[in-house]
């Protein structure tokens, strides 16, 4: 089940160092979001980090073969968890997203992303196709992706559901599906979008309309985007300085510790700070991927690629939300937004990435 203790020497310490820097920036940011207070967010988030560290190292030390073996089981547990959430979930902000497990409110959908990727990795590894993959062989991953999407979307949590679906599709794309299918799908979606529009709930339609023109509702739904853009724009080149953000300290920015945490950061540290964070996440994204090029086992490659992509993708979507490039869909900024489930799932992902970056591939390692 576990690797040799010596394998710790193989760990990519640069990656861990980067992770700590990003988390540290997030901590400083939560401290400033509370107007220079450790309460209520920064300290709490740090405690969680410490509590999660054993899990982090536990996963680093797992044998890839063990992970390979339990990936279907994990998916089944997650599906049960999601169904459980629908029935026994704890309701907050108008949605059943959390389930209470041992003192923690867990957002199962966050972990569904990991389970899906592990399942996909194993599925396509076993497929071991020599050519591009046809539609039939992609059917099971597609069904599972859509099933998870559906289970999360009815919570309702459209943001997370869409991320899950996109991760599933990216995995299928990465695994080598014939390019014909994605192209046909994109055209199909474009043609069907007027119909899809009518399927959206009025509040979702509203969010999209207001995303396209926030001034439609400057004090209501458009308020988030407008205030967030003001915060970021007023940061200027070098920002208002640490703890110098008036948008944040005067509470003009709602959900500043979660979805809009980047606006807090950018108001204080400006364009320069934003570019540094963007650069850090880009490097953080590319390190596991560069390793994935050197590997040849599909299971290893897919896990490294898609999980690393997941963190970077959520980062981009979250920032794009705060600067008005995509609608506000409720996607957390990895390691910077306040929240336990997001932190735990991202730590698990990083642990998996570190684990798989340090392996030396052998033939038949999963058979």
């Amino acid at each position, binding site marked *: 089940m576990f690797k040799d203790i010596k394998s710790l020497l193989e760990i990519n310490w640069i990656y861990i160092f980067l992770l700590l820097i990003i988390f540290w920036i997030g901590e400083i940011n939560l401290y400033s979001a509370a107007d220079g207070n450790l309460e209520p967010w920064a300290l709490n988030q740090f405690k969680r980090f410490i509590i999660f560290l054993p899990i982090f190292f536990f996963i680093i030390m797992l044998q890839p073969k063990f992970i390979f073996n339990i990936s279907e089981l994990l998916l089944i547990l997650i599906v049960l968890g999601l169904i459980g959430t629908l029935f026994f979930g704890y309701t907050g902000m108008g949605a059943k997203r959390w389930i209470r497990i041992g003192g923690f409110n867990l957002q199962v959908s966050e972990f569904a992303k990991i389970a899906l990727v592990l399942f996909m990795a194993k599925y396509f590894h076993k497929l*071991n*196709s*020599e050519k*591009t993959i046809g539609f039939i062989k992609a059917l099971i991953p597609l069904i599972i992706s859509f099933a998870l999407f559906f289970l999360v979307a009815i919570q309702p949590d459209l943001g997370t559901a869409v991320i899950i679906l996109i991760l599933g599709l990216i995995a299928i794309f990465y695994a080598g599906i014939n390019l014909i299918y994605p192209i046909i799908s994109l055209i199909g979606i474009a043609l069907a979008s007027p119909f899809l529009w009518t399927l959206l709930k009025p509040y979702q339609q509203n969010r999209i309309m207001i995303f396209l023109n926030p001034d439609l509702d400057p004090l209501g739904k458009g308020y988030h985007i407008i205030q967030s853009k003001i915060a970021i724009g007023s940061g200027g080149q070098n920002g208002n300085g640490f703890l110098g953000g*008036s948008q944040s300290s*005067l509470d003009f920015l709602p959900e500043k510790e979660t979805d809009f945490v980047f606006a807090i950061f950018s108001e204080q540290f400006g364009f320069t700070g934003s570019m540094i964070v963007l650069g850090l996440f880009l490097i953080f994204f590319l390190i596991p991927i560069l390793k994935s090029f050197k590997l040849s086992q599909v299971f290893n490659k897919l896990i490294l690629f898609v999980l690393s992509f997941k963190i970077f993708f959520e980062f981009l979507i979250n920032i794009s939300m705060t600067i*008005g490039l995509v609608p506000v869909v409720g996607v957390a900024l990895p390691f910077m937004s306040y929240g336990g489930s997001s932190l735990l799932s991202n730590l698990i992902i990083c642990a998996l990435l570190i684990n798989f970056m340090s392996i030396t591939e052998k033939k038949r390692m999963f058979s």
Partner: protein
Amino acid sequence: MEKNKTSQDSIKILNRRSFIIIILGIFFSLVVAVRLFSLQILNFGFYKKKSVENKVSVKATPPLRGDIYDSNKNLLAGNTSFYEFVIYKNLNKNYLKEIKKINSLIGLNLNIDEIYKKLEKFNPYSAYTISKASWDQIVEFEKNKFLFTSIKIIESKKRFYPYKNLSQIIGYVGSSSDSSYLYPKGIFHIEKGYEKHLKGSPGKIFNEVNSKGKIVREISIENPIKGKDLHLTINLELQNYNQSLLPISNKGSIVIINRLDGSILSMNSNPTFDAQIFEDKDNDKINELLNDSSKPLFNRAFSGFYPPGSVFKPIPALLGLQKNLINETTEVVCKGHSSINDRNYYCWKKRGHGRVNLKKAIRESCDVYFYELAKKTNINDLANLATNLGLNQKYNLGLSNAQKGLVPDKKWKRAFLDEGWYLGETLITCIGQGYNLTSPLQLANLYSALLNGGKYPQPRINKNTEIEYLGIPFENNFQKILIDSLKAAVQEPTGTAFKLNNLHPDFVKIGGKTGTSQVVRIKEEEREDDLYKTKEIEDRFKDHSVFVGYAPLDNPKYIASVIIENGGSGSAVAAPIAHKALNFAHSLNV
């Protein structure tokens, strides 16, 4: 071996797909970077401004308005405190309950539904005025203070007018329709005319507020600057005294000016109103005032225009002397009427005055003398002279409703009535009837011009203005003749106002001229019946009684101009009032 080859192919596919996704990811990152550049570098100014606007709220604090004083530094218009019940929504969630409670407890008679509606959208950290607070209500509230957490009493300033008799000069202030004007604005008379002088400049409090409008800290304060005080030439004592002279039953006006410096010492008009009702927002009284058919808002001293009657006669007399149409000794025989082309123009004295020279004509107010003079007079010259002597002018005093009145000439008649001028019209113009329209203030200035020899100080109401002179001087000799005649009209036994001396023998001696301003053109038959002189004539058709006089006799200082609407003859009603007013002014020595 075969297996290995396919594995190599599949890795190639995976790596190729990686590149596509990485390139997409980097492309998306660039889009984000460009967007951030646009927000933070290109549009930095725009968002910085928005951010400052977000957090800084500017609150204007109204300045105190300048005080208005009379010539003896008595306060005529000032500022006073008043109290209001206000509510701060943020202090109690159940603020609606408190409104109901205060309404029933203190009996404020509030329109609760309307207040709820307005409060709903009101900033919870700002004071919303529920009602005015009287002294009794404040006492009642203080007793039950523990019941209220969101309702407070605050003090504000309002305008205070202690003297009702001055409302028609001071005017009043009101809320402006212009929303950029945050505090009351003068909307009538002196309050309006001297708005710039009185208004001061507002202070500003810059506050940093949070997203809910709560003040986080004060950034800076600019204190308001009180408006400048205004000192009027009006004498409060004289103004109050003269108001008491005006008969309550008749509309009318008394104006007293100082002919030496042009100061307006008093300007009374009956009926009058109380400007305080506008400040107290007493809507019932305001409506009653606005609908009052006797127009109390209207100050007859400068907005009331009447035919001057015989007080106009010195003007044609002066013109006759200047144009050499008459001299001191020129005589006319008055048989009670004068005629042009078979049409008769009657003298007020049916039996006639006999032989009349200029002095007698003014002393006894002989109309026939002036009819005969009028036959030689050019109406345009007469209008010109009247204008030089102060009629037909607005004077620019800063009072509302100021008008010029009317001194007719040929051009005016052509323009307004589209008719040529008839000689008969010159006749009735010369005795102050016809188209002539003058205000009591204008008549006072006419006599100021006569007593000053043509060049007279412009009337003024602001004590701190320079004295400016108007008019064109005329010969001293003519001035002497006119003053002599005006003196005779009161001081010689045959004078129209001689009985003043019997009425008040101990009063200061005055000179002056009586006048009767005709309300209806009297028909010849009525004259025959003598009906127009009897008491039985309906009051509203009775003539206006006019008198303009001056005191003291030797070195005249005060000029009084009096009109009593429908009062009858000038000698009977207006003259005694003018005498009292002049005597009082003289005794005050203002």
